[in-house]
């Protein structure tokens, strides 16, 4: 399986993603933001970080970068596009995913382990996944998902909510919501479910010496579904 990770100036989880993808069997390559063409890939990843410094609005400049047109084209033709953290923010900026990511409710950067519940398994990302609740890691200042009530209705009607913040037992409530996200949303799909944006970082949880191992489950399952 071939994957590509896009590097924007200011990306800082690009290497971590590269390490994770390779560990689980992807043949990964890095793509520079000023390129215009994507190499042939089965998966495109927009990694975390602070693309172009994120001084304007998170992801807004990356959403207008040279490479992004090819990403949009690839996504619209049904290719798998995964955006993690800043990558999720970029996907909402391009309009590939609905809604926005606002500043966290308590106005502070949060770096910690959270639990998320997988809401939909009829897609390439979570089909066959062996756990319903994953312990993943978040590290962001703008992860507070929001969209209009009309958009929310559409998202819910199409089962586009991918993962929601929950406690260890799977209860989604205010206490398990780290950033004030609408409906505890931690990640969403587009309508066709080939595009996934999520705030948690599976690539930081890929062996038992790190903060946890549930990221491995995510990647193993993903490559299993693609093979």
């Amino acid at each position: 399986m071939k994957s590509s990770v896009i590097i924007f100036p200011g990306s800082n989880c690009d290497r971590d993603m590269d390490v994770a993808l390779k560990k689980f069997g992807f043949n990964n390559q890095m793509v520079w933001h000023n390129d215009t063409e994507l190499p042939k890939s089965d998966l495109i990843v927009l990694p975390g970080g602070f693309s172009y410094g994120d001084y304007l609005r998170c992801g807004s400049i990356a959403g207008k970068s040279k490479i992004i047109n090819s990403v949009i084209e690839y996504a619209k033709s049904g290719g798998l596009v995964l955006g993690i953290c800043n990558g999720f923010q970029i996907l909402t900026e391009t309009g590939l995913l609905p809604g926005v990511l606002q500043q966290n409710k308590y106005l502070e950067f949060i770096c910690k382990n959270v639990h998320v519940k997988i809401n939909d398994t009829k897609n390439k990302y979570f089909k066959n996944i062996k756990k319903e609740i994953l312990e993943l890691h978040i590290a962001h200042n703008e992860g507070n998902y929001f969209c209009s009530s009309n958009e929310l209705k559409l998202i819910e009607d199409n089962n586009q909510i991918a993962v929601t913040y929950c406690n260890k037992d799977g209860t989604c409530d205010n206490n398990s919501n780290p950033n004030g996200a609408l409906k505890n949303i931690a990640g969403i799909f587009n309508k066709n479910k080939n595009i996934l944006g999520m705030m948690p970082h599976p690539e930081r949880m890929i062996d038992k010496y790190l903060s946890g191992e549930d990221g491995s489950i995510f990647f193993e399952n993903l490559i299993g579904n693609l093979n």
Partner: protein
Amino acid sequence: MEVNEKIAIDHGLKKEEFKKICTLLKRVPNITELGIFSAMWNEHCSYKSSRKHLKNLHTKGKKVIQGPGENAGVIDIGDDDAIVFKIESHNHPSFIEPYQGAATGVGGIMRDVFTMGARPIANLNSIHFGSPQHKKTKNLLRGVVRGIGGYGNCIGVPTIAGQTSFDESYNGNILVNAMTLGLVDKKKIFYSKAAGIDKPVIYVGSKTGRDGIHGASMASAIFDDKIEEKKPTVQVGDPFTEKLLLEACLELMEDNSIIAIQDMGAAGLTSSSVEMASKGKLGIELDLSKVPCREEKMTPYEIMLSESQERMLIVLENGKEKSAKKIFDKWNLDFAVIGKTTNTKKIEINFNKKKVADIPLNLLSENAPIYDRKWKKNKLPQKIKFKKQVFKSLKLSDCLKKLLMHPNICDKQWIWEQYDHTVMGDTIQKPGGDAGVVRVHGTEKAIAASVDSSALYCHAHPLTGGKQVVCESWRNIISVGAEPIAITNCLNFGNPEKDENMGEFVECIQGISEASKYLDYPVVSGNVSFYNETKDKGIKPTPSIGGVGLIKNYKKMISMELKKEGNLILVIGKTEGHLEQTIFAREILSEKKGPPPEINLFNEKNNGLTISKLIKDNLIESCHDVSLGGILIATSKMCIKSKKGIKINNLKNLINKFEYFFSEDQGRYLVEINKDNFKKVEKVLIDNSVHFDELGVVNDNKFLFSDEIDLSIEDLIKAYNNWLKKYMVN
């Protein structure tokens, strides 16, 4: 503008210093030259009060590749790997503008590390604030934490450990010390010493603006009522540009085109150009019209003194300009050839085809003033005889809860959750443990690092305090299963022109030196921050020690979380019952006098090495050093972190139980061992003449001691976790 004595004094120079400049130059300097002298001769850059004493530090060791004097220290960690690290203060700016002050502190120290060719792999910090009740404390804390996070998070380097304390002596002068560790290939370390004549001098990074002019002078002055007016001397950070600069510099370092490289930190272009040329015993010629400027009509004076961030000065091999420029273009950074090296041993500066400065370099470096300041010896305070009745009305469990809630002991999660501590995917011990640990990417090795300070001890008796901080750092590194290698120190003190402050400085250094020599734990880098004083009130002496150690196989890292019910807890090292200068004496007995706990370097080393041996033999399940608060606090922390309990045995010891549980005797650790291993552990301890007590047995979730303590772990967590969060929310 005609330069005179008054203008020189406004630049922070002393009357006699100005006279000396005129004599050495054989004329009155012009304003640009005066600016350059004031920048190079201030305390921050010249170390004029400290240099004499810094020579006494222990700086050599088998694993030291580079000691003090470069951008950062370098140590050998085996194979082709080396670790570059340093700690630096950004105290004055952080008090004036906490967010930018702290942010640029982090930015500056990271530049010092990647200047040497190393990719930063971990950040740490030591931050100290005034009394929580002081009106400025909360905002300063919030601003500093956001600033540290804002910068480090954006660059994508994990912040893996730190220290926070509160003390009223910091009411008017907070301390912000930032430390960075980087990983470098031993054969590809870059230095700041220029070599060769007619080599191009290159400016890269951000454009130069008017921010931070005289920052280094500001950091060499005491504060008064008008500090708000000094806001413009605080630099503004741009972590995004720093990230680009980091990647671009590391890319340029891949091909052999750099002769010397130096970041433009304190005193900007002035100190970087002077240092590179002086170290190489060369001259340097600069044309300031070629410096990329952010603002219009900047004068040579402003360009030379600006402390705009994210800039580097490079001496390049001839003919490499084009390929180097290509890299900086790729990263969208400015690149300009602004001068060349010469054989004149002078710094010559031109602007719009006119010579605006011409100074022999030795006047700025070797001839800079060095002071042998008066200093006062500190006597060891008398011991205090605590009478039995002072303990009479005290309950152990109340004391324990009260201390767990104390701002200097309580949980600091509110702080470190705002720092990205897991980016780069190699953090295997997060903040909150004895030391942070990151793996050396792609290898079996891991690096442990911690930062410590004990201002109360240093204040009570600087010599003992200086030794203690080094020992505590050593213990923290040992506790996670690492071999301690070297330290960096950030020496935060008051006004060196006062003999009592100077005395604190001299004797703390003496203490640091003795301990680091004995423990073979040399100082490889650091900085000095004097004049932490506002309106005549100075801070308590606060040397911060950043310690670094190596774990050969990261799978053998030790943490403080208790592992299994039924395991035994031992106290390693002897508990004598020293209560003076402990947090217990201060908070519960309201006794602030007396000597700090004594340091016995032999025991310290022997106990530590024995713990290391036990860890090596796989006989230790978890470990935690006993420091602030004593045995009971240390045990509680182990329980809280693992959500397990302990049943403490009845004391065989003859000393009073408060002395046993709350004394802060040094050289002690708590270890958890499997009870089946007890005989083996006992033998190692006895063979090495290490004193130990059997403290208790791990249980499910109760904290128990005879009929005096019966607390659930939830009770402990409630006491420990809530203070800071509540304080920041209200």
